[in-house]
């Protein structure tokens, strides 16, 4: 077992073995969703709180369902309707919630480092569900899990992250995770969204999608945010779609077994045309179902090292004897 961490804050500080442990554990959880009773008692009696200071539907729902399938009690707490709007600090809000007897806090916050900060002040486990432009580890893990399903050996695999890499926590977590597993990562987009400095992370930078189209095995198409255009980082959405969107024409030129990923929600006609999003190379819905297994694995692994875990030596060896 290659896991003894209490928190999951990002992929940057995880080892290759820890990432593989997480992915392999998620593999074991996929089958749970196929049963007639889609539930296992592993986290029975534990409390998981989704502490979301940014709007999110799919990540929160995915964590909520993952917790439910592990038999944990899951509470949702959203920043907009909460005491932070009355002036309470992040630490105070989290400490108050923890005082109710919480085992795992899943946090999403617009500030980079928010999850790390909570891991320092809270006694319970913390899972980062996205902090600013820093990391979004479970999204990257589900991306990598989905890629691994189709291409078991990531060594030397060419993965392009296309779009607003500069502001993307999904991109950052993917870069760390993919590189640790031996993949070659490309960052593709306009120079305002993909600065050349990214090459210092060991990433191959390109400002021309057509130039790398034929050599890439996996395209991870990031969602483009309209605010970026309003801030003048690219001229128009139409121009962006034309230069950096995947469409039927471009798909004719990509490798026969290339994969198309998107963290969602898709701007149809911008990052992907509908024929690509719904086409045979798209694994976007696999990403969503795999996300559930990956989040179950994350909750399960950090949950075992939570407040009650890790204090008493196991009374007997696992396995072998009944």
């Amino acid at each position: 077992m290659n896991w003894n961490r209490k928190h999951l804050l990002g992929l940057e500080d995880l080892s290759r073995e820890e990432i593989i442990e997480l992915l392999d554990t998620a593999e074991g959880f996929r089958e749970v969703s196929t049963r007639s009773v889609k539930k296992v008692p592993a986290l029975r009696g534990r409390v998981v709180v989704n502490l979301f200071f940014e709007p999110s539907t799919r990540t929160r729902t995915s964590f909520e369902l993952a917790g439910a399938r592990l038999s944990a009690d899951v509470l949702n707490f959203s920043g907009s309707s909460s005491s932070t709007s009355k002036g309470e600090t992040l630490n105070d809000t989290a400490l108050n919630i923890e005082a109710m007897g919480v085992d795992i806090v899943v946090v999403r916050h617009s500030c980079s480092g928010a999850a790390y900060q909570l891991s320092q002040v809270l006694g319970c486990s913390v899972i980062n569900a996205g902090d600013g432009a820093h990391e979004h580890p479970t999204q990257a893990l589900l991306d990598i899990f989905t890629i691994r399903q189709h291409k078991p050996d990531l060594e030397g695999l060419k993965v392009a992250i296309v779009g607003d890499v500069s502001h993307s926590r999904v991109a950052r977590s993917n870069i760390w995770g993919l590189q640790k597993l031996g993949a070659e990562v490309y960052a593709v987009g306009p120079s305002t969204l993909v600065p050349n400095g990214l090459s210092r992370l060991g990433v191959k930078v390109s400002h021309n999608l057509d130039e790398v189209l034929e050599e890439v095995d996996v395209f991870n198409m990031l969602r483009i945010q309209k605010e970026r255009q309003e801030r003048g980082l690219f001229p128009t959405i139409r121009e962006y779609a034309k230069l950096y969107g995947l469409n039927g024409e471009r798909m004719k030129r990509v490798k026969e077994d290339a994969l198309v990923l998107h963290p969602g929600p898709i701007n149809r006609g911008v990052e992907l045309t509908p024929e690509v999003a719904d086409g045979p190379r798209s694994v976007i819905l696999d990403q969503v179902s795999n996300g559930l297994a990956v989040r179950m694995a994350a909750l399960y692994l950090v949950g075992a090292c939570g407040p009650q875990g890790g204090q008493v030596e196991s009374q007997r060896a696992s396995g072998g004897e009944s």
Partner: protein
Amino acid sequence: MTPDDFGSLYQRWLAGIRQTTDTLEDWALVGIKRRGAVLARRLLDDLGDSAGSGGPGPAYGELDISLYRDDYHLQTGAPAVLGTEISFEVEGKSIVLIDDVLYTGRTIRAALDLILDFGRPRRIWLAVLVDRGNRELPIEANFTGEFFETERNDRVQVRLKEMDDDYDGVDLTSFVETGA
């Protein structure tokens, strides 16, 4: 225990199970990972051949009970999740559950809960190669290869050549054997 001793232990166990399964229809062999599953695969080979009146052989499955343990809060780390593989319809099936060693009974409790999450079988038998006593739950096996009187601190380890350096055996450390 020599390989010959292990062989005759296994044969006795197999013969006992066969008496019941020979007349069964619509039944399944289900092994508890990892060594119970290895034994279940051997039984599948040996029992499948003689599938009674020419009917179809048993269905086969493997259980990973790591998510059903009752000592989760006592562990220092999460037990590895190996995955459960039950691809047949559990509802109405007769199931022979296989494990290598029966000890406290807690693994079997977990395995029973896990099977019931797939549906309601007609009945479940328990077959264990070795029973070492010291039960902590009211659970008994229907088919036992051999019973060993042991103390709680003794180690009883079934070795199977599929996973343990190519030999079959039962390793017993500091124990008192009765009968046999």
